[in-house]
């Protein structure tokens, strides 16, 4: 009796733990969206790091940026490629959103797909949305 109970419990446990995988198998899977480069970003084509590093590490970069701006009052970032940026998510031309003008197509499409909800936008504002 206890042997069967244990086995049944184990099956339930394994199923529950693997739920992200089999849930994705039975629901329709979509291909990962490409972040769209629009407006200024499409023309300039030179970001802080190159494309793949940016994809993988933008969150660490932003974390360093916010500490630098808030705690050291250093707001100017010159990257390894020699370009200078204003360390800001959304204020001014030389900020993230200053160049990547469409937040929905640039930030949100990937974040939604990856099911991450960064709390940046609880405080920082998208200048487009305000207008």
């Amino acid at each position, binding site marked *: 009796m206890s042997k069967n109970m244990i086995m049944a419990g184990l099956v339930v446990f394994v199923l529950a733990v693997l739920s992200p995988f089999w849930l994705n198998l039975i629901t329709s899977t979509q291909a990962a969206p490409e972040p769209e480069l629009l407006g200024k970003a499409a023309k300039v084509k030179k970001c802080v790091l190159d494309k793949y590093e940016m994809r993988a*590490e933008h969150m*660490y970069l932003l974390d360093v940026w916010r*500490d630098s701006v808030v705690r050291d009052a250093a707001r100017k970032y010159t990257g*390894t490629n020699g370009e200078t940026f204003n360390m800001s998510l959304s204020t001014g031309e030389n900020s993230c959103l200053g160049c990547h003008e469409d937040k929905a197509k640039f930030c949100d499409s990937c974040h939604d797909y990856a099911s991450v909800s960064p709390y940046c936008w609880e*405080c920082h*504002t998208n200048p487009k949305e305000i207008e």
Partner: protein
Amino acid sequence: MMIKSRRSFLKVAGIAAIGMGAAPVMNLAASESHGSALPKMEKNEEALHAKRWGMLIDTSKLTDEVVEAIKDACHKSHNVPDFTIEPDAEKYSGVRPVREGQEIKWIWDEHFHNAFPDKEDEFLAEKFHDLPFLVTCNHCKNPPCVQACPTQATFKREDGIVIMDYHRCIGCRFCMAACPYGSRNFNFRDPRPFIEETDPDFPTRTKGVVEKCNLCAERLAKGEQPHCVEASEGAIVVGDLEDPESEIRHLLAEHYTIRRKQSLGTEPSVYYIV
């Protein structure tokens, strides 16, 4: 600066890597080994500098209109919520009713005996009874709020500004208990429904964090004077307290000034000409 930034970059990436697997750090190291220069983080060239920022308020120049203009300029540009307004019902649904006493203010007016409770005189000069006294964060040299904060979310910058890292604040409100000047505010709720016009140049705050005057650090960084100074018609001067040649030091040398509760030893950096 350069070395420090790089180190902190790696440190943060390293901490993140503990949770995320080691891959990001590996990538980062690779990118830096083939890059020609290291990333640099610097202050803007046009930024205003001081050894210790201070403020001088000439109370004789403060009229009710000027006071309103100052409060307005500060609060609007910093997206400080105004709980007297009716939230936009289309944009925000189910907003809870406002609870009294949970307001937020960075700079505001008080009666003399509230601003200076230890200087309450029985036979105070008549004119002081009705004069508006502007109060704000004193950017103390020995700030009790910084001492109390368990995460260094409130800290003193090397230029004397006592400032907050809203990303780090856990909302324990120990700093509010510690501040002898009542200068701190807590976001009891999401402030956004109560911001009439959001200024895109400054973030809003989120619910659950403390906030207060930052001496317009974001403007000093761009070489501009704080909003209150600009709106004050000469009543407020902000400058370097440690520089004997600065305007604020000249004014301090010429006038008799007082500070709030200086007997507590917090060394406020806001002076009042009375």
